[in-house]
């Protein structure tokens, strides 16, 4: 990526390249770790857009392999769902 530390990586939470690099240098070695420190991946799209980019940054900065840097745990719901909807059980 062309140097431009101000560049947005997580579009939803507006987390920059600089913030993610800082999180990694601070000790984050997984995508979850970066997420917890920066909120990257916690926004509306739940990391769908930035996950792979963050993973690549972790791989590049820490020297781990792609397999070692697993995507963060997938928790339901994998799509944005309002709580009201989840509570609205449908009997068929």
């Amino acid at each position, binding site marked *: 990526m*062309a140097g431009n530390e101000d560049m947005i990586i997580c579009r939803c939470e507006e987390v920059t390249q600089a913030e993610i690099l800082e999180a990694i240098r601070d000790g984050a070695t997984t995508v979850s770790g970066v997420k917890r420190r920066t909120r990257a991946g916690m926004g509306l799209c739940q990391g769908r857009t930035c996950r792979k980019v963050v993973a690549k940054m972790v791989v590049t900065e820490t020297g781990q392999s792609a397999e070692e840097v697993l995507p963060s745990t997938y928790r339901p719901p994998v799509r944005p769902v309002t709580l009201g909807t989840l509570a609205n059980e449908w009997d068929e």
Partner: protein
Amino acid sequence: MIQKQVVVIGGGPAGLSSAIAAAQAGARVTVIDENQRPGGQLFKQIHKFFGSREHYAGRRGIHIGTEMLKEAEALNIEVLLNSVVYGIFEDRTLGVIRDGANLSVRAERVVIATGASENPLVFPGWTLPGVMGAGAAQTMVNLHGVLPGKRCLMVGSGNVGLIVSYQLLQAGADVVAIVEADSKVGGYHVHAEKIRRHGVPILLSHTIREARGKESVEEATLVRLDKNWHPLPGTEQDLQVDFVCLAVGLTPLTELGWMANCRCQSVPGLGGFVLHHNDGMETTVPGIYAAGDCAGVEEASIAMEQGRLAGLSIAESLGLIDRTRSADQRASIQERLKELRRKPAFYDSSADLGNREASTADRASLEPLKVGPGYPTEERFQQGPTAIVECMQEIPCDPCAYVCPRGAISVGRPITKLPHLDTGKCTGCGLCIPGCPGLAIFVVDNTYSPTEALLKLPHEFLPLPKAGEIVEALDRYGRRVTEGRVIKVENPRKFDHTPVVSVVIDKRFSNEVRAVSVRRGRHGR
């Protein structure tokens, strides 16, 4: 809690194929899709598919989608649309949101056929409105009939980038350039040729440096890359564009599989983490199968075969078909998968036209073509009209072998073999022209008159030229080399929207002209 026998998550080519295969064996199948209509990517694919007959080769994606839906309907497959599977829980229980309500569906067998998502490319300005996935532009144009802008920069020359560029041209946009970071074109060469002959430059070893604009894209800066893919300072150039499409790969959507504890493995060549599966497409969780791009990003034809395999395996596991009966079917599918996965190779590596700098008389690019099995001899050219098959890459595709009424074109098996033209049998009728999904077949009659040749070319654009009209005759790089006089335009239903234009040109250019441009301007306005 609703009980179902077989639930397929995702109604694209893989999902529908698995549903059809399972239902054909007698299973009760439900397909759940989050979209308003099923078909996945099929309804955006307005081009003719490659592959072989079993993959509906030569048919447009949109029609394949309709066919598959008809088959599904005839088999009483239940299709739940606007329904989102948001989780897979224990015992193959699915959480589904439908009509704003939460549903629990317990399935005996599940197929995860959730496809893949487009990769982002990060660069300064990538969040500006106007920067979007190539698939996003395809959706806007082919599904919604709206152009995202008028001047596009396409980033990436894989099949998606090449195909979407072509479709943008068809919809009336200008593709100002395609940039490819690698030193060679990523997708099939026939896809590259289709757009190159209409003047779209493919800049190899280039990438986008930045997109700029006040509130949306107005300009993009390109930069050249060195052998190690590092930007070369001083090689920046600015392009005025109003949208930028990113065609830089797809990543399998494996979320549901992860949740269900299906083992995933990282396979960079297949797009990243893919759902691991056995020969029968079953994941590491019994009863859960995977098919299509979520099991590895490949082609639609492969997605269909994998779907069939999953459906078959499910039917076997439910005791609906005899293993010995299905063994034959499985074997055929495996054969076809092997065939479809053969790596495209060149007949002659110097035929990699992408590497050539465009020169004023680029005869050099012709030489490799001339030695191909689809190219007539000089002698044959002087005997009368003949087809020319400019297909020099071993890709899995063979519809040309079925369209000639005289059987002059043969491919054989494996279907990656280059088409061979028997010029003795060929009469130059041109029926092969609309039959080639790659639009790589032309007819040339060098005997039309002492100074003129008659060319027959495919032309999938508007406006269509009219008989008697004078048009620009373009070479393989989209350069106007002469003018042409249109004498006929054939567009019968059986050509499926690939009109064939018969144009008379100065005979000296008959080896170069491969496209025409109508002077009236696009869309006849």
